[in-house]
């Protein structure tokens, strides 16, 4: 195994304890007789020691309070959401054209209903007029003067 390959393993599997037994043995034998690779291994160990000494920092106290507050306020917002949406819907300012459209529809519906009601009353009106006409025509049958146009032409044809 070349120094290059050994150094690759030193920087990963060997340093991290991932190398198998055979690789470990081979590398150890190589390090015993190769000064540059040995130096690299020492450097890597020194570097790793700094990481191993890293202190674990305590989590600041206030973080959970902030999270809890965030969760509670979001839940309150969600619970009041339905009522709030209804209030918003009812009292939200409407655009002019929406109001104008609604007003037009109301007028249209009112006029339509009025016309329908009027049409229902038309047969009654016709009934009254019809009876007047019937009386008029009955009266006319017995009254010849009703059909006289003031000329003698009728007599000619008759």
């Amino acid at each position, binding site marked *: 195994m070349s120094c290059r390959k050994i150094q690759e393993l030193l*920087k*990963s599997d060997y340093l*991290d304890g*991932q190398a198998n037994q055979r690789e470990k043995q081979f590398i150890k034998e190589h390090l015993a007789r190769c000064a540059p690779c040995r130096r690299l291994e020492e*450097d890597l160990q020194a570097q790793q020691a700094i990481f191993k000494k890293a202190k674990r920092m305590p989590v600041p106290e206030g973080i959970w309070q902030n999270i809890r507050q965030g969760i509670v306020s979001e839940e309150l917002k969600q619970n009041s959401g339905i009522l709030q949406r209804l209030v918003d819907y009812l009292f939200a300012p409407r655009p002019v054209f929406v109001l104008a459209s609604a007003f037009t529809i109301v007028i249209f519906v009112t006029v339509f209903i009025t016309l329908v009601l009027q049409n229902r009353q038309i047969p009654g009106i016709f009934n009254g007029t019809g009876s007047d006409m019937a009386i008029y025509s009955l009266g006319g049958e017995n009254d010849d003067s009703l059909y006289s146009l003031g000329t003698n032409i009728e007599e000619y044809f008759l």
Partner: protein
Amino acid sequence: MNDIAADILERAACGEIEAFQQVYKATSGFVYNVALRITQNSADAEEVTQDVFMKIYHSLKDFRQRSTFKTWLYRVTVNTAINRYRKTKREQKDMLDYDSLSGVLPGGSSAAEGAIQSDDETRLRALLNILNPEFKTCLVLREIEGFSYQEIAATLKIPLNTVRSRLKRARQILLEAARKGLVKDVV
């Protein structure tokens, strides 16, 4: 990270806040510390932690695969932290551009130059500052959180060989930075 009982997850998923608090107690240490290492900023880490748990709370009821809860939490944490880190970087860059124009900051101040530090914690921060978010995340999960290659691959949704190559590359970058004297006393 502590194990979470299945019934606690179920209750938390139903919106029970006390159960969710137990989930928080068991996992917030991991979330905060990973966020802190990736963002390198305690204010950002706090925001990331809050964001992660709000996301978890909202999505838990729809999350059916309770067995992979931890992996899911790891992924949400890492993604939220990386996004936060990038956002802060952009904002800092904008501010830096403005400050440079107005001559407030001295020229030539790079992250690497500012990385020459003494004690362990500041040295660690300096090392992490050199790396991009992807390499940094891999290294944090492996070296600080002790994840296996498989766990890193599952968390980041990347192939195992990509985990291996990112770790190699990250370590190589840090060694080169140390040899150039950008990070003091590392090697």
